[in-house]
């Protein structure tokens, strides 16, 4: 390239950077954004449009073409209220699409019997044949395909709901609460339960009371299996019914009559759920509990188990495995002989604890407002949590109608997680998803596989966890593949989106649609140098603006 080109490109970038700074200052002081440099298409977005875009970015997985106008017609307040009552929103088109996937409606038991067990039997048969010297196994039998169908459809519906559901706030909250009460689909029998867990345990309660959600999770086979509580057994009890596949002969070894050592791991007891229940589900790690509390809570939940996890069995309380002694949890006496009610009492104590109101409010404010939650808003949300007995609709309403939510510094302050990035890109391009499998793969390479978070912490909701060299490249590559229709099973009609084959017109449309109302002068200048519409669209979705919400 020649020297004069080099100088020019350096100047253009510098000039664009200067413009961006001015625009940013102007936006902060509330005065209108000045027109860009010569040839720029940046037109000032109205205050109204910016507000609507902000609300859509936070309450939904990102605006689709036409969404801003739709909200403008009914008003922001009416839109927020509508999203808070999802049962009033028609979602028939999505439901019809999901109805084509049979495993989504199947019970965990049916999934075990009809999809998983036949494959396990087939595997055994083939191993036996191999051992017997049968030369070549036949091509993959249908049983294996059906087994894979379970996870494929589960992952697919996650993407389809996030992209196409009209009940967007509900889907955002289902994602939030699933992540809060995370389970991992790769842990054994959990593959039978995860779909049912998300749709029967979490979804109906995201606008309900926290105590109900907590209780439903505590009794869900998905959580009982994931955090091992289904195996936890009173070491001193008489329990002839051994847990399925658990080793035998362990519990009886403790010398009779010896009191348990303080803090000692009791044979039969499994602390995993008890600890995460307090650290991650309710009080938070600084919520003031001790190792002693963990052990006592674990004793309360002995006997909360699953009637055959490999058969997709349901929750059951097994009194023979329950520790009937007295317990002491966070200063509360749990009287001896309480049976199943021990666990319910623990959940009551935790759900009404002030640390829980604060911990849950902090996480919700982080999701909807800012990585560093404004303390004033956390205080008000936590107060609302307490005065409404943990009514999650009211807590969310407090947050999304707050002045902190609407404040200038909240706007575009969140970096999208990979899921938010991918789904918002699919929504803003009005993508037609015939098969979401490749999108599911993309999320894996972006570091956020669906239902694939192994630790109970769930995925982080802070920018520093998601901004790194390498991951930025993966986002740019996803954007490029999507708009050039190289993502198998996904179709984007750029011509329709751009509304024109004229580069100048297309750029204006794409910039407003894909980059959003806060397009910087830099991005505008970069787009202005492109003549190919797919390149413009890739640069729009890979732009710094689009990484934020």
């Amino acid at each position, binding site marked *: 390239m020649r020297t004069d080109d080099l100088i020019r490109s*350096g100047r253009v970038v510098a000039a664009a950077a200067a413009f961006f700074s001015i625009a940013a200052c102007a936006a902060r002081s509330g005065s209108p954004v000045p027109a860009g440099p010569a040839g720029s298409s940046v037109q000032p977005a109205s205050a109204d449009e910016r507000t609507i875009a902000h609300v859509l970015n936070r309450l939904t997985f990102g605006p689709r073409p036409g969404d801003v106008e739709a909200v403008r017609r009914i008003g922001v307040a009416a839109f927020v209220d509508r999203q808070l009552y999802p049962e009033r929103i028609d979602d028939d088109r999505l439901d019809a699409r999901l109805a084509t996937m049979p495993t989504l409606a199947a019970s965990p038991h049916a999934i075990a019997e009809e999809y998983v067990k036949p494959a396990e039997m087939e595997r055994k048969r083939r191993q036996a044949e191999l051992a017997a010297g049968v030369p070549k196994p036949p091509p993959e039998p249908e049983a294996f395909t059906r087994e894979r169908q379970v996870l494929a459809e589960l992952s697919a519906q996650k993407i389809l709901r996030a992209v196409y559901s009209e009940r967007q706030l509900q889907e955002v909250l289902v994602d939030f609460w699933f992540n809060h009460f995370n389970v991992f689909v790769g842990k054994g029998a959990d593959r039978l339960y995860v779909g049912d867990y998300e749709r029967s345990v979490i979804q109906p309660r995201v606008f309900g009371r926290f105590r109900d959600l907590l209780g439903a999770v505590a009794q869900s086979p998905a959580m009982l299996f994931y955090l091992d509580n289904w*195996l936890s057994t009173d070491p001193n009890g008489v329990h002839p019914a051994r847990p399925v596949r658990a080793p035998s002969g362990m519990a009886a070894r403790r010398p009779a009559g010896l009191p348990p050592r303080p803090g*000692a791991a009791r044979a039969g007891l499994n602390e995993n759920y008890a600890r995460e229940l307090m650290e*991650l589900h309710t009080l938070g790690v600084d919520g003031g509990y001790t190792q002693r509390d963990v052990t006592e809570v674990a004793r309360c939940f002995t006997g909360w188990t699953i009637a055959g996890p490999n058969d997709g069995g349901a929750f059951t309380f097994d009194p023979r495995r329950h520790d009937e002694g007295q317990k002491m949890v966070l200063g509360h006496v749990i009287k001896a002989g309480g049976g199943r009610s021990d666990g319910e009492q623990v959940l009551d104590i935790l759900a009404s604890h002030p640390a829980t109101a604060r911990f849950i409010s902090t996480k919700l404010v982080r999701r909807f407002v800012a990585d560093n939650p404004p303390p004033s808003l956390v205080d008000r949300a936590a107060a609302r949590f307490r005065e409404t007995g943990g009514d999650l609709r009211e807590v969310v309403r407090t947050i999304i109608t707050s002045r902190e939510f609407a404040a200038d510094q909240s706007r575009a302050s969140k970096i999208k997680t990979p899921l938010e990035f991918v789904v918002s890109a699919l929504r803003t391009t009005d993508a037609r998803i015939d098969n979401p499998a490749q999108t599911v793969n993309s999320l894996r390479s972006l570091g956020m596989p669906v239902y694939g978070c*192994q630790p109970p*912490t769930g995925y982080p909701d802070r920018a520093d966890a998601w901004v*790194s060299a390498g991951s930025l490249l993966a986002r740019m590559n996803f954007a490029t593949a999507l708009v050039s229709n190289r993502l198998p099973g996904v179709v984007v009609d750029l011509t329709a989106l751009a509304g024109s084959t004229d580069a100048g017109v297309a750029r204006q449309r794409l910039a407003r649609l894909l980059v959003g109302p806060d397009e*910087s002068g830099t991005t505008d200048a970069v787009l202005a140098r492109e003549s190919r519409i797919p*390149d413009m669209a890739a640069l729009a979705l890979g732009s*710094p603006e689009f990484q934020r919400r």
Partner: protein
Amino acid sequence: MVTRRAFIRNGAVALVTLGFAPRFLARTVGASGNSARRKVLIAIFQRGAVDGLNVVVPHGEAAYYAARPGIAVPRPHAAGGADPAVDLDGFFGFHPRLSPLESIYRRGQLAVVHACGSPDPTRSHFDAQDFMESGTPGTKSTGDGWLNRVLQSAPDRTDSAFRGVAVSPQLPRALLGRAPALALGPIAQFGIRGGSPSLAAAFEQEYAGISDPRLQATSRETFDAVRTLKAVNLQNYQPAAGADYPRSPFGNALREIAQLVKADVGLQVAFADVGGWDTHVNQGASAGQLANRLDDFAKGLAALATDLDDRLGDVVVLTMSEFGRTVRQNGNAGTDHGHGNAMLVIGGNINGGRVLGRWPGLRPDQLYEGRDLAVTTDFRDVFGEIAERHLGIADTATIFPGYQVSRARFTGLLG
């Protein structure tokens, strides 16, 4: 506001996009002789809390066998066709799946630091990992990770985008901070794929002028790295003879790290994760769940050591895990969250062939809180010894704020 700086910086981006090599590239590629070899730390995080007592087995402890009737690894030379521990020094032994590492230990290139860990009592995976990665147990407000502070302090700094590399989709906590670090997926896919040839440069320009310093820096590091990888051409890598990496995410990660070490791209700190250690249920003994994970783990490390060959002299590989596990097996033939643990250290120039640290014993009265292996070596003393004596960082105080790393407490691993 247009500053002169901004203009120069953006001009520089334009230069780079026109094919002018970045400064560091010329330097590192030009100076790849032996004298310019950089010291490298490869940190391996075993997330989920590995059961160190079944990795480096205290087979000389009767209490070990008493506490673990169902999951103990049999004593070396145990009768009855058992799959016993590999004896190291008459008291400790490797889990049998660690046998690929035995010859490295015998050569004196592998050391164990046992009963090592955090002074903080937490048994939360999340907190304990956070503390081990921030390098500040008990303090949650530390903004950056200890490996990032290593990068900030290490002598012989360059502009290489590969000074700090995590082979993972996202950067781990340990590498977060103001020194540039890179999360690297498969090398073959590292670059802008598809679109016009000029697309990568256009993406780069979008980020060059933005006001968010983190996104801007991240973008700069990304595109520097893309150029470097193109220049050194790592596509058709052949590991050294005998280096047989397991075909697993861990094996692939170590293979990529070896490539970067040998390509002299300026690597100083590499990081890889390996998970699956949270064995609350049916962890097994010589065979089973833990054994299967150790098989992958040991084969990977052995392949790395073989592949690095004489470059192992410039390298220290350090394994860590957030805490150990209960001495007693639990009611499900597994183990719960505990305290002290074992770290492995591999390197061409370490004082290996030994199990280091003071052994606190496993009798009930010797245990931490009556249940766990006590910690006799603070993990920061091991990190600090490596930072000072391997990486040549004179002042480790900034790496471990609030802690006095003391040579008197060094294990003797190095130097």
